């Protein structure tokens, strides 16, 4: 009797505590930011006022930063939607040569660091000493000096490269699973290929496309990495970099918090709109009983155009940046092009063995990524259990609440934790960075594990219980082994995100708790060779994780 009651207690309390931790992780920094934005110190006395907001909104720098961010986010969204849809359509629905390679290739940027991507594009396209203008001048006699990566178009370009895979991932499923009869019926009843595309195919994937657009807009506008690398050197203001500079000496936390509140409100509103109007449109109406679409045969011209687009994308997002990065990392002094006589491995020796900052940073990043991913996946399992097996009444609300961090910019969550941590022993420890990482990114893991949970028939667990297994035994012997593929996927995803994270870390690091990305920012003012070498080290970690991801996924699909 005693043990069975204990079992029931565990079954309820463990998942609920996972949810409680999640809610705390979200509401803590949120409340801290709210309070800090409306609290004003008059000497020792604290009063509540909207002064911070009034000062913020009256500041022309705020208006500039907001406008630039909206422009960059908006243009990125439109470009990433166009590119992501086209690439997904080519891979899913045509006989483009090398489809299976591009299927992987189009996803690689998803796993790379946008900060490193922006740095690489500086090496490629800096107004003085960029690799591409040098190649164009030397070999083609074309002047490309008018191309300047330190600009709003430069920011949009790099953001587009990194956010295209989001759209790609969202629409490739619906494009693959769509009942081909929808399109075939239109064709037979008189619609041309183009008309069918506009009036049937596009509207049918529109819910997926809009969901992707919203996520791309919110997250690309909130990304700190790219504006830092490409905007700040020329004084072009963006929201994330503006918040960063408000927290630097002489800091104005009140105004930073007010800025954060404006962004948070917008983000939460947009996310709620998405949940309300887009996510509710049923996707399953377009899939189901029909048959799979047959592949569209590309004629010669179309095939060349498709391959050119793929080369343009994979080249721009993966190949060219990696080449430039390697050239810089192996150069004694970067002069805008690679010279064999100044080739060296010295940069790697320096960052890997000689320099304390980078050695500490690599150690910290690995610790944060491994610990954070493990804790995050543990939390995700508990939450996913609650969301799929727990009390169905509160599920919708809990799900909405737990998904909120998906859209919240890292820098704003970092700000919240900074405000909480400032006067506590947590300040300037790896622990607070770890907590911030988990708070910002656990929903990714929860989503992945929940999807897998939904695919597991509850009768499998009920059979185990009926056979005499306790709840814990059922979890250990039945549920977790079945969940394993999603646990591996979620762990790798968190690992990748944590290895490259910058937006939250930049506000929370202190001497001794630098990460690889932070060390790159610090070093970027000194030597491009060291930065590039460190970036290559990070790239290797990310690509290893990506390779593992692909390999485990393939083996799952085959088994």
């Amino acid at each position: 009797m005693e043990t069975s009651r204990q079992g029931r207690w565990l079954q309820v309390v463990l998942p609920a505590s996972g949810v409680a931790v999640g809610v705390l992780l979200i509401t803590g920094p949120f409340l801290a930011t709210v309070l800090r934005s409306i609290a004003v110190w008059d000497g020792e006395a604290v009063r509540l006022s909207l002064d911070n907001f009034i000062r913020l909104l009256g500041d022309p720098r705020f208006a500039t930063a907001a406008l630039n961010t909206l422009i960059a986010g908006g243009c990125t969204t439109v470009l990433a939607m166009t590119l992501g849809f086209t690439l997904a359509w080519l891979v899913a629905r045509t006989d483009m040569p090398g489809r299976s390679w591009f299927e992987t290739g189009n996803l690689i940027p998803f796993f790379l660091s946008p900060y490193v991507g922006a740095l690489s594009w500086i090496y490629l396209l800096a107004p003085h000493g960029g690799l591409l203008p040098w190649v164009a001048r030397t070999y083609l006699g074309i002047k490309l000096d008018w191309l300047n990566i330190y600009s709003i178009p430069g920011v949009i370009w790099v953001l587009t490269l990194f956010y295209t895979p989001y759209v790609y991932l969202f629409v490739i499923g619906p494009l693959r699973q769509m009942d081909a009869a929808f399109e075939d019926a239109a064709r037979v009843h008189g619609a041309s290929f183009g008309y069918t595309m506009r009036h049937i195919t596009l509207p049918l994937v529109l819910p997926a496309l809009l969901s992707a657009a919203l996520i791309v807009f919110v997250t690309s506008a909130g990304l700190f990495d790219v504006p830092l690398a490409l905007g700040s050197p020329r004084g072009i203001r963006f929201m994330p970099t503006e918040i960063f500079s408000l927290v630097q000496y002489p800091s104005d936390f009140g105004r930073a918090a007010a800025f954060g509140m404006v962004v948070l409100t917008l983000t939460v509103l947009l996310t709620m709109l998405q949940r309300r109007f887009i996510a509710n449109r049923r996707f399953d109406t377009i899939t189901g009983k029909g048959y799979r679409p047959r592949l569209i045969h590309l004629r010669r011209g179309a095939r060349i155009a498709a391959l050119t687009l793929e080369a343009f994308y994979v080249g721009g997002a993966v190949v060219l940046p990696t080449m430039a990065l390697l050239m810089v990392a192996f150069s004694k002094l970067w002069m805008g092009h690679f010279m064999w006589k100044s080739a060296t491995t010295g940069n790697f020796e320096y960052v890997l063995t000689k320099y304390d900052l980078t050695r500490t940073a690599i150690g910290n990043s690995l610790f944060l990524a491994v610990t954070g991913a493990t804790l995050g996946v543990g939390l995700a399992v508990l939450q996913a259990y609650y969301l799929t097996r727990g009390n169905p009444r509160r599920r919708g609300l809990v799900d909405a609440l737990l998904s909120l961090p998906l859209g919240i910019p890292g820098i704003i969550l970092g700000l919240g934790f900074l405000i909480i941590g400032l006067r506590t022993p947590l300040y300037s420890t790896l622990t607070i960075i770890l907590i911030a990482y988990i708070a910002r990114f656990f929903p990714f893991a929860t989503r992945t594990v929940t999807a897998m949970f939904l695919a597991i028939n509850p009768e499998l667990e009920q059979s185990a219980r009926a056979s005499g297994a306790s709840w814990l035994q059922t979890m250990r012997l039945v549920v977790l082994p079945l969940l394993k593929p999603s646990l591996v996927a979620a762990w790798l995803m968190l690992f990748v995100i944590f290895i490259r994270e910058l937006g939250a870390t930049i506000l929370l690091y202190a001497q001794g708790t630098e990460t690889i990305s932070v060390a790159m920012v610090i070093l970027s003012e000194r030597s491009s060779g060291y930065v590039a070498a460190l970036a290559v080290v990070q790239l290797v970690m990310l690509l290893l994780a990506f390779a593992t991801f692909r390999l485990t996924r393939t083996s799952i699909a085959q088994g």
Partner: protein
Amino acid sequence: MSFVDIAHLTKRFGGHTAVNEVSFQVPQGSTLALLGPSGCGKTTILRCLAGLETPDGGRIEIGGKTVFDRASATDLMPEKRELGIVFQSYAVWPHMTVAENVAFPLKVRGVGAKERLAKASAMLETVGLKGFENRSATLVSGGQQQRIALARALVHEPRLVLFDEALSNLDAALREHMRLELRLLQERLGFTAIYVTHDQAEAFGLADTVVLMNQGRIETAGPARAVFARPATGFVARFFGLNVLEARMIGPVAGTDQVEVALNEQFTLRGIAGDGLDMTKGKPVLACVRKESVRAGTSPLPGSLPGTIEAVSFQGVAEEYIVAVHGISLRAIQPAAGFRRGDAVHVGMTPEDWIVLP
């Protein structure tokens, strides 16, 4: 005058030949059913007709116009073939209203908004969905979606309408109802129709001509009644659910169109000789008989044989038995007679009911 003319149609998928040198014609205003088990190539033929697959060989003519010809590299796009089509999944577009779905073929043909709405409404009324115009297409039942798909396939008055397992997703009662309605509608509107189905009742109920397919080839073709009454091959007999038994030829019965065959040492019988039958003594042949023609009774009749009931399956009005005669198991369907396993019965069969096939 044939309206659809298919000649030597061939379609391969990789190394697999889905349709192999298939030729048939469909007269104007008549209906043809492509019947066969799944994977026999019937849907591929339909998709080749619609222009949704490109054949590897042959020629297709619709209404005197060549829409596909391998030899002259003619391959009209689906939208140029002036057809209507109803899919198994209905393919009613979820992002349009019922009226928008039905009016779509008119819209792409540049018909004005007012006229196409009027025509769509009229067609909806024809299929029994009057007043459904502004409903969301996803919020109607499966049977109603089927009618929407039908209205959409007919609204632009195509002369050929294709049905791809169009009734398979409906429940049995609705399916039978739709079968009769389709027949009436077709007689009224006068279109030529080609049905693809795996259901023989559907094929016979809908079509004047039945083409039975097997592994990419035509197994038998002809008027529905003839195809059913005289199965042409063992495959056809099995597909229509006859008893098909291996036998050895004894020889022709003089003065009749019958032959005598032996199922085993004790069991010999007479049956009608099928086309192309080799009557050499000892040749392996197939003896086929309809389940309905095997009659089990309690009292002996002229020519009846002693048998034993091996299994009983009660089916309501009828009862299906497996009855052993001289060690050969035969299936019989007849009005429920209440036999039990092990009962000794007399099994009556007439030579006219047996068909002997090569």
